[in-house]
């Protein structure tokens, strides 16, 4: 694991960040010398060819060369007469026209065959020579070569001098010195800008990839999950992207498994329902046929009871299976804003003939204004069906059903009341449990509250939107 991590260090964000930080730290010790080296490079390869001056060795004013030449010339003049020396020095002064050339003969006379360029004494004594030498040493702008004629002091033939301004010796150094610093500064500035650009790009690139990742996380694919993203680099963000892809794949698998389970469960319930109902239907058919046979009153009554129990059993199967599906979370409610009173009226219309047949007094007094609740219409009908069914089954003795709206403290409730013996007493038709359980579950799921007030005089079921922190089901 560790080696894998260190192996990835080269391409990691950390390494790149460290590199940038190191560059930042080494800016002064590295960049300035680098700028100077850069300058040298630029100078040699770009600026030099622009000033095609004579090469160094051909410059006759170069110090060493000049010194050597001057001493050689002095040697050659060893046996020459002063006139000949004059002639030769004149030639030389013409050759070195930028330099000042003079000589002092054995008698100490100044001779300037190339013309007077310097302010010198005409007659030289030992002190004059000393003064000149002192002046020469103090002068930095000039290069002076002094050679005795015959290149030996002992000959006593005097000495010859050539004096060259330093500028002539290296003609390019002075005019370029201003530009040098300019180029160095420019290079430093360029490097600084390059550094900023690199760090900026580093950050921008990171930001772009993070935003891309964030975008990929929020966009939903066809199955409601984000699509996996393409991993281009194996650095930290790349690892994050890999982890994200892994997570998406895992979610996808679990979603698929969940759907399969849901499908399986639904199929199981459907098959179970079919297997239970088919024989019930057959029994019902036989009971119906049997009723047409000549039977005693008691027999007829028993058949009638059997038939009603068959109906109950059908409803019970439906409730049981629905409850199983609902509570296993395999079925999702689809709540919409709906006028629940309209649903209540339609449901009551469907039940009315049955109540009528059983001789019930039906009292429907719903408010005229619609009542908008957020409900799943199909399941709200189921709630009503179960409540109405309960009244028919367990409060039959009251022969009354009331469906009303009541407003209390600004909240409107739908009230279903009967005049049965109440929930605690035995009504002869047990089994309200599953029906009420479904009602309780559904009301909770839809954010409704159900309050049941039951006494021996009857039962009132109040349905109203749940307030915060209110239980879905209350039984008084």
């Amino acid at each position, binding site marked *: 694991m560790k080696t894998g991590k260190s192996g990835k260090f080269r391409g990691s964000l950390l390494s790149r960040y460290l590199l940038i930080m190191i560059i930042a730290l080494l800016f002064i010790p590295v960049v300035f010398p680098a700028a100077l080296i850069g300058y040298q490079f630029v100078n040699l390869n770009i600026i030099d060819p622009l000033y095609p001056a004579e090469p160094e060795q051909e410059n006759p004013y170069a110090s060493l060369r000049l010194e050597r030449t001057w001493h050689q010339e002095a040697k050659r003049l060893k046996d020459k007469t002063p006139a000949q020396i004059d002639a030769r020095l004149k030639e030389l002064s013409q050759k070195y026209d930028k330099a000042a050339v003079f000589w002092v003969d054995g008698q100490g006379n100044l001779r300037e065959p190339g013309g007077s360029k310097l302010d010198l004494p005409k007659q030289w004594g030992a002190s004059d020579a000393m003064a000149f030498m002192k002046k020469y040493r103090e002068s930095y702008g000039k290069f002076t070569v002094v050679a005795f004629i015959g290149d030996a002091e002992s000959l006593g033939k005097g000495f010859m001098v050539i004096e060259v301004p330093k500028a002539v010796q290296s003609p390019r150094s002075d005019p370029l010195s201003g530009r040098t610093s300019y180029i160095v500064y420019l290079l430093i500035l360029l490097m600084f800008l390059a550094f900023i650009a690199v760090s900026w790009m580093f950050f921008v690139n990171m930001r772009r990839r993070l935003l891309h990742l964030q975008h990929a996380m929020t966009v939903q694919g066809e199955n409601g999950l984000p699509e996996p993203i393409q991993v281009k680099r194996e650095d930290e963000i790349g690892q994050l992207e890999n982890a994200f892809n892994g997570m998406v794949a895992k979610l996808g698998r679990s979603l698929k498994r969940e759907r399969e389970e849901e499908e399986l469960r639904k199929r199981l319930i459907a098959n179970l329902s079919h297997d239970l109902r088919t024989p019930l239907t057959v029994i019902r058919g036989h009971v119906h046929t049997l009723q047409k046979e000549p039977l005693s009153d008691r027999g007829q009554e028993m058949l009638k009871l059997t038939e009603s129990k*068959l109906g109950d059993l*059908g409803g019970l199967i439906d409730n049981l299976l629905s409850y199983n599906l609902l509570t296993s979370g395999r*079925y999702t409610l689809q709540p919409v804003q709906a006028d629940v009173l309209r649903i209540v*009226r339609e449901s009551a*219309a469907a039940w009315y003939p049955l109540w009528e047949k059983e001789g019930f007094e039906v009292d429907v007094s719903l408010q005229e204004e619609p009542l908008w609740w957020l409900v799943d219409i199909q399941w709200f009908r189921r709630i009503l069906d179960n409540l109405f069914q309960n009244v028919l089954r367990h409060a039959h003795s009251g022969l009354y059903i009331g469906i009303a709206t009541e407003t209390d403290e600004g909240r409107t409730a739908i009230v279903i009341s009967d005049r049965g013996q109440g929930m605690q007493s035995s009504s002869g038709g047990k089994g309200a449990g599953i029906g009420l359980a479904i009602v309780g579950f559904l009301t909770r799921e839809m954010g409704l509250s159900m309050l049941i007030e039951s006494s021996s005089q009857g039962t009132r079921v109040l349905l109203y939107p749940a307030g915060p922190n209110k239980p879905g089901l209350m039984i008084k």
Partner: protein
Amino acid sequence: MNVSLLYIEDDAEIGEWVCRDLTERGYQVDWQRSGERAAELAANCKLVILDVMLPGLDGFTVGQRLKKAYPELPILMLSARTSIDDKLEGLQFADDYLTKPFHPDELAARIEVLLRRSGSVASDVLELKHLSVYERENRIENRETGEEIILTGKQYQIFKFMLRHLGQILTKEQIYEGVWGEPYFDGDKTLMVHIRYLREKLERDPAAPEIIETIRGVGYRIKA
């Protein structure tokens, strides 16, 4: 009556019993064990009773095919499945739906409603209390006076809509939306006004209506 029905049911016992019961009620029943020949047989019948769980092609598929081929043919679905998923799926094409175990009277009543709605059994004359309604001729006659009752367009539409749902209680929303074809807005008194005029023409005593019954708090009904 001799109306022919196509009944598709795979369970032998149920099929036999329903078949017998419906025949006794005067229908001509063609009972098929599977939906394979449904399309050709449906051509000659007035209504199809279809079981959901069938071998081979299931009831939904058969029903959808039938509805496509004969859009006017009413289809009544019978299901032994729980109402949880079938009702939504099944009712998209089916005209009605009945869960097993059903009462044969209930089945017969539903069949009658469907046939009436599709106009297949518009019997020559429908007797309602003191009225004789000749649906095909759009004529209503008061038998006591022998006079013909003339209704306005909307009044007739409302009356006809309620006759199609004979015996069923209809809420004012259902009637309004069925006749006007627009969503009902609460507080709209138009329907009440029309029904009052309708009663003045039809009823013996409009203050104590016998034809169009008011179910207090729920809606209206024309009892067969």
